[in-house]
């Protein structure tokens, strides 16, 4: 095992997959030698693999994804970067109507082995156009897989699976996770999609948390432990497919559920997980479900405001205590 930052774990996955398979290539804005990625994820890659396989593009999100789709259906394995998740809004047709539907519309003739990496999340005071968490939209777009790693280990393992797979994947990265460190094996490994990870075992309340919120949930768990509330923290790791069984089994054990995710509350990630339990596991529930998410506002700029809308440990503790 070795210790590595989240951004470096992603880079390692890219490097190893590009070495393993020459059809893998990268494209995106400022990912090449001059900038090496807005978050420096692609540092050194243009030097190592050349400009041909690490392709800077103009500011053309639609064309980035469209070109990646065209390459994917003709034998390549593109990994496209959209510099900020908020900007997927400029490429939704290509993502949702083209990439996601091509395999289906054409009756299974074409494969679309395309990975779209993009950072989501708030916390760095860059306001309404650079801080959103739009994962829920991609859950609601059949044909896409959605990965939401919260650790370097998962980031690397899931990204490798994504690149080797034959389906379009929205690979969600959290801005605040990039510098976070964690242990990963020295040797090659992959992580299957659809397998949640129990980050902490507990009997009293189940917390399902995503991405940066996993850490917040674990902090909350410590605080709650002192108050003799023992929570279980589940990290789905992928939203599509979702490990429903893991969630339901945990709820069966605890009888209580808090779902925590960035992204605004209404019709968000937390809604789907709450609905799942309302549908499949309501008999196990001993209390109302609680959703901890952003209120239905854009993300404001000022630190004092942003802090107010992004879920924190305190909000999680409160939600747990309401139902525990």
């Amino acid at each position, binding site marked *: 095992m070795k210790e590595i930052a989240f951004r470096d774990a992603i880079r390692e996955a890219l490097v190893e997959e590009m070495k393993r398979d020459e059809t893998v290539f990268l494209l995106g804005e400022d990912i090449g030698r001059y900038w090496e990625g807005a978050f420096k994820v692609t540092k050194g890659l243009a030097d190592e693999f050349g400009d041909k396989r690490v392709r800077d593009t*103009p500011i053309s999100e639609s064309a980035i994804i469209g070109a990646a789709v065209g390459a994917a*259906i003709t034998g390549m394995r593109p990994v496209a970067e959209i510099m900020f998740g908020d900007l997927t809004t400029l490429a939704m*047709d290509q993502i949702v109507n083209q990439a996601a539907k091509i*395999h289906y519309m054409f009756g299974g003739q074409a494969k*679309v082995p395309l990975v779209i990496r993009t950072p989501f999340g708030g916390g760095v005071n860059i306001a309404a156009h650079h801080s959103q968490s739009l994962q829920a939209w991609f859950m609601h777009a059949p044909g896409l897989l959605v990965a939401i790693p919260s650790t370097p280990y998962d980031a690397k393992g899931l990204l490798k699976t994504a690149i080797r797979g034959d389906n379009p994947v929205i690979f969600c990265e959290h801005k605040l996770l990039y510098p976070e460190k964690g242990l990963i094996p020295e040797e090659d490994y992959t992580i299957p999609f659809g397998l949640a990870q129990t980050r902490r075992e507990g009997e009293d309340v189940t917390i399902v948390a995503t991405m940066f919120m996993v850490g917040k949930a674990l902090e909350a768990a410590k605080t709650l432990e002192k108050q003799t509330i023992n929570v279980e923290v589940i990290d789905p790791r992928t939203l599509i497919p979702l490990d429903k069984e893991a969630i339901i089994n945990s709820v069966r054990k605890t009888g209580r559920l808090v779902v925590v995710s960035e992204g605004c509350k209404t019709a968000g990630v937390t809604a789907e997980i709450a609905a799942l339990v309302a549908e499949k596991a309501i008999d196990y529930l001993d209390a109302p479900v609680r959703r901890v998410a952003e209120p239905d506002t854009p993300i404001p700029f000022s630190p004092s405001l942003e802090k107010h809308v992004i879920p924190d440990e305190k909000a999680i503790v409160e939600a747990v205590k309401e139902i525990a």
Partner: protein
Amino acid sequence: MKKETLIRLYRKMLEIRIFEEKVFELYGQNLVPGTIHLYSGEEAVAVGVCTNLRQSDYIVSTHRGHGHCIAKGAKLDKTMAEILGKKTGYCKGKGGSMHIADFSIGMLGATAVVGAGIPIATGAGLSSKLRGSDQVTACFFGDGASNQGTFHEGINLAAIWRLPVLFVCENNLYAMGTRQTQAMLPQDISERSVAYGIPGVSIDGNDVLSVYDAAEEAVKRARGGLGPTLIECKTYRQKGHSRWDPATYRPKGEVEKWLEKDPIIRLEKQLLSNGELSEAKTTRIKREIENAVEDAVKFAVSSPYPAGDEALEDVFA
């Protein structure tokens, strides 16, 4: 041009026309679900371009795609079956008229989102280049599509990367009821190539030989690593935009004027007059095509619809 090529151009155009006349007839009989966009009158474009392509080359098509399919070599029976929503169709009935694809012949599929195919074609071109293959991609789209952001972004990307792509604009004067000149100020859409620093030409899209020549040149450039070309083919759709369109927005006499420029009749006359075709031969060709189309109809009509729960298949590879 070689005689065989001329006959091939003629035959292909006719095949498209007769096939679509049948489609028109079938939807009169309520056998075609949904809507239909006929290519009648524009056959010279698809045929002039695709006759320059190899089977391994790619095309990207549109909602008005039957002509592109057939010109690239798609089978009539599987095309017809798809249009009728049958299990035996190219896409198992999941795609329909607006979403036919045949990857085995490099037909990368039709998209019903106007302009969406343009960056996808750029990507196919990129793929060939990265793989070191000499495949080229021809991307068809309409005058209306040239006002989409994807036109701008997709062609610009192909230009800077010098990708082997032919951007073939089928300017049939209208996007639904909107005249080309109502939607943009330039008369010639090929002028837009200036914005990308690539060659652009405007040609008579009802003259299959002009199309053939322009495409030949562009294919040569593309295979030679010189990058993309924008080819604007001025043409006309002889029918309404789609199934229900009476096309009353057309000025009087316009259709008649363009019917006179029918690309098939034009080539036929020419070939007859210079002796490369005889009345007997045209009759035989027509008969052959009619029979093939009849077979396709039989195949399609007698094929089963997919079972309902097949809808749940093919979401993921």
